[in-house]
């Protein structure tokens, strides 16, 4: 045993490895991504990115049925995609232990919603564990495998951003090597046709019944008695905020929150004068406590966004700390496309086209922000093409609709959207922004880029051939660093009476190691038109005095996009030495 500092994601990977996991599979999604990126570094585990979470869960189901322990990872919205296999896997049960690591994102640091995965556990009728720090993340993952095999059910381990991305001390142990039993066909359990499913539905009720006994006495659910005046029921990272803000109160710390430990809650409630519930997001625990007829104190704590110790302290009447006078009216600093980003030229062309753009999930969602503001919609992974088709059914010919989707997202859930456009006679236009990686989550390989999680080469999908094979006759390739070319091809294709796919292929700027020489503005030639500034490149600014463009040579990567949009040839190669001036004022 040794103690070390680990993030929650690192601890989940370590726990899975110690539990003898043989396969790890998932789809990248903040804040879950680093689990598999760490697990792949351990001996004896085959780790893979799947094209999406549903496929990942199905691969995991196969590993489990074949008798081995398997971890499947995703962010909260990924479970929407994987919900189909999960709900029925609960009926079928498991062979080897099957654990879902699902990372929620309260406050939506890097997500489109903040759904609470505990509701899924209750709906799918599978146990859920909620670690409150890295040490518990490691321990709970190991326990989850035991529970999965003992009770014959998949188990969800739910983290949140502050668990996944916070580091704290963990005790690491050794790996438990496990023999994989010989496969025996068991159609009654694993062929979920109605006659079998009806039997397994009843069996799931039996298994849940046993789990209901387990949660009343399992070590994950514990009472910490201090004073009797106030008791708090809490779970996950909220436990840490309660301990910090209210060090003297008694706490019922719930580590396994489905099934819900009704008797334990009742006993705890009877020991304290007032009872409160502190949990992030939905009133999952609160509603279940109230359903027992137990009176719960109103704290006014929100059901939106993440908590903090100060928020919890204030809800229980603690005085505000003394504060410095804040400095107000500061300009916001939104995230932005990197210098040299290949998406920028595409959104410049779409902006110029005045197209309605149905967007998708990835770095290119940033095309919705000023100055280009070239994206109209972004709902979920793969939605761009379905939504473009829907808008086409209602829209007018004057306002072209263009769907925009990245390479990894296209592989994730874009194929069916495009197939629908082919099938239903769409005359729409689709752009696939192929930057050769899954960029936003930190550059994971995908089936289009042809790199595996382990960093090995894989067959890279030929997007052009794939799209043609699906029945799209017009497939065009464009250089995203040439917005003029992108604009003219787009203009032709939106006017054409057929469905077309335009593939804009250039690697993510962060993958390009060799930077070209930076450019500079020829002050005499600059006519202050603002075209280059409207690209929204962090290397280009408007001089407050002269209104001319200025290029910061320390940030410019020499992509040349601004050279192509400048009408007065005012942007020229710069021989200037790269001193540290420029953006640093």
């Amino acid at each position: 045993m040794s103690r070390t500092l680990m993030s929650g994601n690192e601890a989940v990977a370590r726990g899975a490895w110690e539990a003898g996991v043989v396969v790890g599979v998932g789809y990248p999604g903040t804040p879950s991504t680093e689990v598999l990126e760490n697990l792949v570094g351990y001996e004896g585990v085959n780790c893979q990115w799947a094209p999406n979470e549903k496929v990942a869960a199905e691969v995991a189901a196969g590993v489990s049925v074949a008798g081995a322990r398997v971890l499947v990872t995703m962010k909260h919205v990924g479970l929407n995609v994987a919900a189909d296999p999960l709900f029925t896997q609960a009926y079928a049960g498991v062979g080897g232990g099957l654990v879902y690591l699902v990372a929620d994102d309260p406050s939506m640091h890097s997500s489109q919603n903040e759904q609470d995965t505990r509701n899924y556990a209750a709906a799918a009728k599978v146990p859920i564990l909620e670690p409150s720090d890295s040490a518990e993340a490691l321990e709970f993952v190991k326990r989850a495998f035991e529970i999965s095999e003992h009770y014959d059910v998949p188990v969800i381990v739910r983290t949140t951003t502050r668990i996944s991305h916070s580091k704290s001390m963990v005790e690491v142990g050794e790996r438990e090597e496990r023999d994989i039993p010989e496969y025996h066909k068991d159609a009654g359990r694993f062929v979920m046709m109605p006659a079998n499913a009806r039997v397994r539905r009843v069996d799931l009720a039996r298994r849940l019944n046993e789990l209901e006994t387990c949660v009343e006495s399992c070590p994950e659910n514990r009472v910490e008695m201090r004073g009797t005046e106030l008791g708090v029921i809490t779970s996950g990272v909220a436990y840490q905020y309660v301990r910090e803000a209210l060090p003297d109160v008694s706490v019922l710390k719930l580590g396994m929150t489905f099934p819900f430990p009704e008797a334990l809650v009742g006993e705890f409630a009877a020991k304290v004068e007032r009872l409160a519930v502190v949990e992030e997001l939905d009133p999952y625990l609160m509603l279940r406590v109230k359903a027992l007829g137990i009176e719960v104190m109103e704290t006014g704590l929100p059901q939106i966004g993440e908590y903090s110790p100060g928020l919890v302290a204030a809800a229980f009447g603690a005085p505000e700390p003394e504060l410095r006078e804040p400095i107000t009216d500061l300009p916001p600093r939104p995230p932005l496309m990197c210098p040299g980003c290949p998406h920028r030229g595409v959104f410049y062309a779409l902006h110029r086209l005045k197209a309605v753009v149905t967007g998708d999930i990835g770095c290119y969602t940033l095309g919705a922000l000023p100055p280009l503001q070239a994206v109209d919609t972004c709902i979920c992974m793969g939605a761009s093409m379905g939504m473009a088709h829907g808008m086409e059914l209602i829209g007018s010919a004057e306002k072209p609709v263009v769907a925009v989707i990245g390479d990894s997202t296209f592989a994730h859930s874009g194929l069916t959207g495009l197939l629908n456009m082919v099938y239903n006679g769409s005359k729409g236009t689709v752009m696939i922004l192929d930057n050769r990686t899954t960029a936003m989550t930190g550059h994971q390989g995908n089936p289009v880029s042809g790199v595996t999680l382990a960093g090995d080469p894989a067959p890279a999908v030929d997007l052009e051939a794939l799209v043609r094979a699906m029945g799209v006759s017009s497939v065009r390739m464009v250089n995203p660093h040439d917005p003029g070319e992108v604009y003219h091809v787009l203009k032709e294709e939106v006017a054409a009476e057929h469905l077309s796919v335009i593939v804009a292929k250039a690697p993510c700027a962060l993958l390009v190691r060799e930077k070209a020489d930076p450019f500079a503005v020829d002050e005499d030639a600059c006519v202050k038109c603002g075209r280059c500034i409207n690209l929204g490149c962090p290397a280009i600014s408007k001089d407050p005095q002269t209104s001319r463009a200025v290029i910061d040579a320390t940030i410019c990567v020499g992509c040349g996009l601004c050279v192509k949009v400048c009408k007065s040839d005012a942007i020229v190669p710069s021989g200037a030495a790269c001193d540290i001036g420029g953006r640093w004022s």
Partner: protein
Amino acid sequence: MSDVTTVLLAGVGGQGTILAGDVLAKVAVAAGHDVKLSEVHGMAQRGGSVDTVVRFGPQVFSSVVDPGTVDHLIAFEIIEAARKLAFVKPSGRLVVNSRNIQPLPVLTGTLSPPVGLIAALDYERAVFLDAEELACEAGSPRSANIVLMGAASVGLPFDEEAWREVISARVPPKTVDANLKAFELGRNACEGGACEA
């Protein structure tokens, strides 16, 4: 929780706050403390505001912090220093990189650059240093984050040798010398009380 020390590293995506926070956390672990570190990855990393919290002491519960609770603010950029000011205790310490990265709405001329921030932070007893200049002097412009940790180290209860060991183990092997030099230059800039609030 007065026996817990809270350090907030504030900067802009890409400035190296995550690595700097990791170094500090490991130094605190080596000194026998309970430690928690919190950071946010993902979309904000693309040039947005980012912050890393490191807390250490006998027992640390929360990894996130509230206004009025930070003992040391290490700001990698002036606007971010100003943005996080209210998080710092009145008795807290501010170490601020005197450089300025304008956000996109300012670069495009949509918003005016903020004025008077240095004066306002100076009034709050901030200590300024030019981390980029010192990083270049150390031999690597990318080591500005370690310069700032050198400056931070003066007010933190850890041996200089512990810092050097962690830095050597944590940065890319080819940059160890430059980063150790960066640490020393940042530390020297603050020694002799220059960085004391």
